[in-house]
């Protein structure tokens, strides 16, 4: 089997995987990093969103081999020890989750938005979340969380 190597949350990693291995399988099964979730497995729900070379994408719709040599960021890389990342803290503070299944993807997607648009309007946040589905919250508190997280990150 070919060896696929990349950087995940700043650490070099390497694993032997079949070419058909998805990036999300590589993260969850080869590396044991289960923070990135598989929801629909059809590129619609966004629970599997991670960053590859600084941009958000759905890791259930990318082969691990396509990420060879890439710089990957997942939800596990955000907190600093016990201290949550400001976007995670905003989700906690604003009750931006109920069951929490979609949350890793929501947070990673939100961080891609705020790096492109540090001060998004509510409408821009809602449009950005086209590719992230939540079946609990009705989105309202997720949008509030992202607006609060963006404000915190602006400092």
């Amino acid at each position, binding site marked *: 089997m*070919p060896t696929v190597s990349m950087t995940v949350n700043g650490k070099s990693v390497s694993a032997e995987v*079949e*070419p*058909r291995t*998805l990036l999300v399988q590589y993260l969850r099964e080869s590396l044991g990093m289960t923070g990135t979730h598989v929801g629909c*497995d*059809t*590129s*619609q729900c*966004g629970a599997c*969103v991670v960053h590859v070379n600084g*941009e*958000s*994408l*759905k890791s259930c*719709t*990318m*082969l691990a*081999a*396509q990420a*060879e040599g890439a710089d990957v960021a997942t939800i596990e890389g955000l907190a600093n020890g016990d201290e949550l990342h400001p976007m995670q803290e905003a989700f906690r503070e604003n009750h931006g989750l109920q069951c929490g299944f979609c949350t890793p993807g929501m947070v990673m*997607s939100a961080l*891609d*938005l705020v790096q492109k648009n540090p001060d998004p309007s509510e409408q821009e946040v809602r449009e*950005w979340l*086209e*590719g*992230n*589905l939540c079946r609990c919250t009705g989105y309202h508190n997720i949008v509030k969380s992202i607006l609060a997280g963006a404000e915190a990150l602006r400092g």
Partner: protein
Amino acid sequence: MYQFNYQKAGSADEATSAVAAADDGRFLAGGMTLIPTLKQRLAQPSDLVDLADIGDLVGIEDGGDSVTIKAMTRHVDVANSDVVQSKIPALAGLADNIGDPQVRNRGTIGGSVANNDPAADYPAAVLALNATVITNQREIAAESFFDGMFTTVLEEGELITAVRFPVPEKAAYTKFPNPASRYALVGVMVAQTGGETRVAVTGAGQDGVFRASDIESALSGNWSADAAKGVKMSDDGLNTDIHASAEYRAHLISVMASRAVTAAG
């Protein structure tokens, strides 16, 4: 997914050679359709040849009265391109509404056009704007490129390298997206180029993208939202599925066309 071999090609020539050498090779562009197709075991290629590292296949060129978009240019880069925004804003807008941000960060124009999904957005632009599909072997006019659902006239191993769009006088694209997948339930591109009116419909036809000649005729004499809305489309040859009936899609075509005319101004 079934097993396959995977390799990255460094050039278009290397990619076409690799596909030719394989038992059943396929090009891999952004993978936004091919990977889901493989996951459902609807395709079983022996080899995937990834085009991601071929820098020559990425970029947007301003040709004055045309805009050429190279095949591996991602939707997000078409949407954000100054050239496309100023020359063909309808095309930038179309790209900005494909799928969702994560899909737009990966999906490419060449992949979308080659795949000819009956509900994809780009085929409507290619047909309505009378674009030319450029491959490693020839140039193909939009009119003769699409050949039924998921089918084009591309030969085995033929690689799209770019799509050239003439700059229209006016154009707009309006779609009614499926709320989950964001694919077009019905999408309509209207365009006036060199005095000719073209209306292309995606999402609705059983054979994929098509020109709505009745709406084209109505708009040729009277470029107005009412003229488009006044056309009662036949539901012959339109899709019925869990999302909408053929009759509903027929109605939506006129409605989307009229909104597109309003947007085009």
